[in-house]
C-alpha cells in the first residue's frame, strides 16, 4: 500500500488514472506504480495533470503531488 497527498488551496475531487479517487489535502491510499493525477470540476488548476510513479511511501510521509491555482504565480 502506498500513500499520496494531492495538495490544492481548496478541497477538490481528485482523479486518479481518470477515475474519481478521493479529495485534495487528505491522505489517499493507492497501489504502487505510475499514476495520473488530476483534479475535478473547474479547470482552474495547473498543471492539467501529473504523471507520478508512487513507490516506497509511508503513511507518515505520503508523496505530495502539488497542484496550483492557474492565476497564482
Amino acid at each position, binding site marked *: 500500500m502506498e500513500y499520496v497527498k494531492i495538495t490544492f488551496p481548496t478541497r477538490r475531487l481528485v482523479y486518479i488514472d481518470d*477515475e474519481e*479517487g478521493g479529495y485534495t489535502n487528505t491522505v489517499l491510499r493507492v497501489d504502487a506504480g505510475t499514476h495520473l493525477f488530476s483534479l475535478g470540476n473547474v479547470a482552474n488548476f495547473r498543471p492539467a495533470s501529473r504523471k507520478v510513479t508512487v513507490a516506497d511511501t509511508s503513511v*507518515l510521509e505520503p508523496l505530495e503531488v502539488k497542484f496550483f491555482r492557474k492565476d497564482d504565480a
Partner: protein
Amino acid sequence: MRRALLALLALLLVGACASFPENPPLAHYDKNAGYRFASLAHPDNSDSLFVIVTFSGGGTRAAALAYGVLEALRDTRIEWQGRRESLLDEVDVISSISGGSFPAAYYALRGRKIFDEFPERFLYRPIQSDLLKLALTPTNWLRLAGPSYGRSDLAADFYDREVFGGGTYADVIARGRRPFVVLNATDMTSGAQFPFIQDEFDLLCSDLAKVPLARAAAASSAFPGGLTPLTFRNYAGSCGYEQPAWVALAAADHASRVNARRTARAEVRLSLAAPGPARPYIHLTDGGVADNLGLRGPLDAIASVDHSWSVMRLINRDRIDKLVVIVVNAATSPKSDRDETASVPGLIDTLSTAAGVPIDNYSFDTVDLLKKTMKEYGEDTKLVETCNRLSAAKGAQCALKLDAPHAVDLYPVQVAFQYIASREERRWFQNLPTSFELPRETVDRLRAVGRQLLAEDPQYRNLMRALHGCLAPAGGSC
C-alpha cells in the same frame, strides 16, 4: 438400406456441424452500459457497510455450503444507520468459482426466490447422473463429435434448460440491484481469472447481456478432465473500445517492476483486446484453476485504485466505514492410506496430488494475503493516531498533527471445514467428494454447517457486536 445410410450420413453431418453458441458482438463500446458495479442501484444497501462474499469451488458441496451461508445472511438481523435490516441486503459483491457459481448466479437472477427454488432445482438433483446420461445419448455423440462443441456445451444447455430457465445477463441487468455477482472462469492461455462482467467482455467487444447465465456457470465449473473448456468468440477491435488510462501506465511499468501484479493485470487486458483480433477465440476452463476461492478479484479491488469496482477508491472517497469480506471455502482434506505402506504411489494418485496441492497452497496464501491487506488498512490509521498521541504527550511544542487516511473497520470472516471444532465432524466434512450429486442428508448437513461456521467465526461475532446483530437459529428468531 440406402435410405438408412443416407440418414446416418445426414446425422453425422449435423453432428459435425454442431458448434458452440457464439457470444454476440458488441455494436459500440459504452462504458456506462451493461453489467457493471457502478450501474447497479442500491437504494437500501449502503456503501458505508460494504460486504463482499466469496464462494469457492467444490461441486455441490461448495454450492450447498454457500447456500447455507446465504440463508444465514438472510436470517442475520442488524442495525445500521438507524434501520433494522437483514445483512443479506447489505451484500455488495459476490465473487464465485465453479460449484459456488451456481447459487451465486441463481441469486443474481432470482434474488430471494433462490430460497424457494434453488434446493430442488439444483442442490438435491442428481446433476452428475443427468449430465452423464446426456453424454451417453447417441444423438449427443454426434454433436460431441464436432470439433468446436464439447461436454461443457452440453452441460451449459442442460443448466440453461433445467436450472436457470433460459436466464441471461440481460435479466440480471434488468433486476439492476446489488449485489454485483461475479462468476469467474480461467483463461487457459494467460492463466488469468476471467470474470463474467461487461468490463471483461468489453475487451472482447462482446455483449455479455445476451450470454446465458448457464454458460457463465458452465465455464466457471468446467472441471478439467471431466468437463471440457468452453469457447468464446473474441471480436476485439470492432467496437471502438478504449482501455482505461491505468492500463498503459501499468504496462509501461514493466521494466521498473514497481508493481508486477498491476502490470500483469494490464498485460492480460492488452492480450485479450489486441486487435485483429490477435486471439479470435478464448478458451475458458474451471475458475478454480486460477483461484479456487474467488478471492483474487476482490483482493485486487481492495488493494488497487485501478479496478472496475475498486474498493480502495470508495474508501478514499470516505464512502466505506466497515468492510466485511466473508470467504466461504469448501476445500476438503481427504484421508489417504498412502503412508501406511511402502508402495510407490500410483500415477492417478501422483497426478491428482500434483493438480490439487498447488491449488490448496495457493488458496492458503490467498486467504493470508487478504488478512494482511485488510490489516494494512487498520494499521496505517493506528500508526498515525499513535504518533500524534505520543508526540502530543511530549508537550504542545512537539505535537504532530499528521493526517490519517480514512479509517475503516475490518472484518475478514472465514467459513471453512477446518474450523469445525469437533474432530469427527470435521473429518466427515473434509472427506466429502467433489461431485454434482450428493445425498439430500449431506446437502442438509452442509447447509447447516455453513450457518454454524458463520455464527462461530470470531470476526463475524465482532461484526454482530458492532451492528447489534443477531443470527437467528435455523427456524427460530432473534
